[in-house]
């Protein structure tokens, strides 16, 4: 059985997602010891040196989105994620956002889990870990699963989930209305959550990755304090407006603001 990571990387006017994916790929190999495939529309000659497998696909836009760290609205080519099942060259796949920073081998536990599909059900903001954080969506607070990290095996269950996500994406306006979603843009997290609801027989009894994603919001500045041992620092404003910071090591995180992560990658 083959196991590998799959990253979708489609550059937009602000972010070089391919470069971010290449940087992530190196970390994935280091900590998880698995090959990495990239799905992209980029045609750089060096891609085959950076990834074990390059899968060319057209960018599917999910619309445009305002990013606080860029203070600008940028195109968001994220809608192709539903094709992960069809495109993955592996028997077991770990789909990761290119801005998910692997800093440990904790995802090995996910790869060793017996389930055919796993994703995160909960997340926390590294700056305010005790506060509620994006656990639900829509008018009636439907429970949210995160599409940031998805592990699946080629199996009927996983196929049903991705087929359901494709259906939801194709009828996005209908599902927006049904779940009272105010955002106009298609969002993978919402589609995944709705799909898991459907595939669970509408029971919402879904096995999930048993820990929350550590999330770094766009208004939190991240930097790499030391490379060996690796120590990350997150700076943010406290409730009193005064600067605060927290440092972590050996903990994966989701860098939701791309600008600071790009700066770290540039410096590496």
């Amino acid at each position, binding site marked *: 059985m083959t196991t590998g990571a799959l990253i979708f990387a489609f550059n937009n006017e602000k972010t070089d997602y391919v470069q971010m994916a290449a940087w992530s790929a190196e970390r994935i190999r280091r900590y998880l010891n698995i090959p990495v495939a990239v799905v992209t529309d980029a045609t750089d000659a060096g891609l085959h040196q950076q990834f074990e497998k390059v899968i060319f696909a057209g960018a599917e836009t999910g619309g445009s989105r305002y990013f606080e760290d860029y203070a600008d609205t940028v195109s968001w080519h994220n809608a192709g994620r539903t094709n992960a099942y069809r495109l993955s060259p592996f028997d077991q796949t770990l789909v990761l956002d290119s801005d998910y920073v692997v800093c440990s081998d904790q995802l090995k536990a996910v790869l060793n889990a017996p389930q055919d599909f796993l994703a995160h059900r909960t997340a926390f903001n590294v700056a305010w870990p005790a506060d509620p954080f994006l656990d*639900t969506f829509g*008018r*009636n*607070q*439907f*429970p949210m699963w995160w599409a940031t990290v998805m592990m699946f095996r080629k199996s009927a269950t996983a196929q049903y989930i991705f087929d359901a996500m494709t259906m939801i994406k194709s009828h996005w306006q209908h599902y927006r209305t*049904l*779940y009272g979603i105010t955002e106009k843009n298609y969002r993978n997290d919402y589609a995944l959550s709705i799909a898991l*609801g*459907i595939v669970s*027989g*509408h*029971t*919402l009894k879904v096995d999930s990755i048993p820990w929350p994603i550590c999330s770094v919001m766009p208004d939190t500045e991240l930097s790499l304090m030391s490379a060996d041992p690796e120590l990350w620092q997150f700076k943010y404003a406290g409730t009193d407006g005064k600067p605060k910071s927290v440092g972590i090591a050996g903990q994966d995180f989701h860098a939701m603001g791309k600008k600071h992560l790009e700066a770290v990658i540039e410096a590496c």
Partner: protein
Amino acid sequence: MKPVEERGYIIPAFNVGSVDYVDCARHLAKTLLMHHPDARICLLTNQADAVDHNLFAYTHVVEDIDKTNPWANDWLVFHHTPFRQTIKLEADMMVASKIDHWWPMFEHRDVVISQGCRTFYDTPAVSRKYRKLFDVNGLPDVYNAVTYWRLSKTAQEFFKLVREIFSNWQCYKTLLKFPEEVPSTDVVYAMAAQIMGPDTVTLPKHTGPQIVHMKSGINPFSSAKWTDELVWEYNPMRIQTVAQWGLVHLNVKDWHHE
């Protein structure tokens, strides 16, 4: 009355106000029979024309009831059940799945009152909006909506207490901080449970049945009438696409007419 059958359900439905509880009871019985065609159901009512042999194996009509507070007639269920083991169900609910696994869970006890409730997402209700009186008085978090008893001294004592508390509310309410003027069945059951010892009449919380309570303070919807806001399907019952199981307390009494 002397029991004539071993197990069955009793639904009290006293019509004294604008809500037609007999109609609610008919609907509840229909949904119960949908999942358990052999279920034996007794309707306890003050409405003489409520007999429906297709739904109710027994219809006990008691016309001489307390009309000032219809809930105060609850104790009658103990005296009118034709069953040795009875599950009382509040009328304004519907059965969304099989519930006969409750019998073997209950039968080791004399009395079991359900504790806590759930949201339509099948998560434990965390809001205490409607339970402040219980919290401030340290009362057990019981819901009379599902109550089991077997013919026993314990059950006899429990319902005797329920009757006494309802009948002497002006005295009993002095025991409480911020009491209700008109006692609700849940508060009276909680007081009776407290007097007898909660462990005597409940199972450990979250092990016994819990109703889905469709009140707006418990669930994430903004309309007072959830049927105006959420998408719902009848059979199988889903609310906002989420499959329901167990008992669903509708809160909207005429839901089944919509």
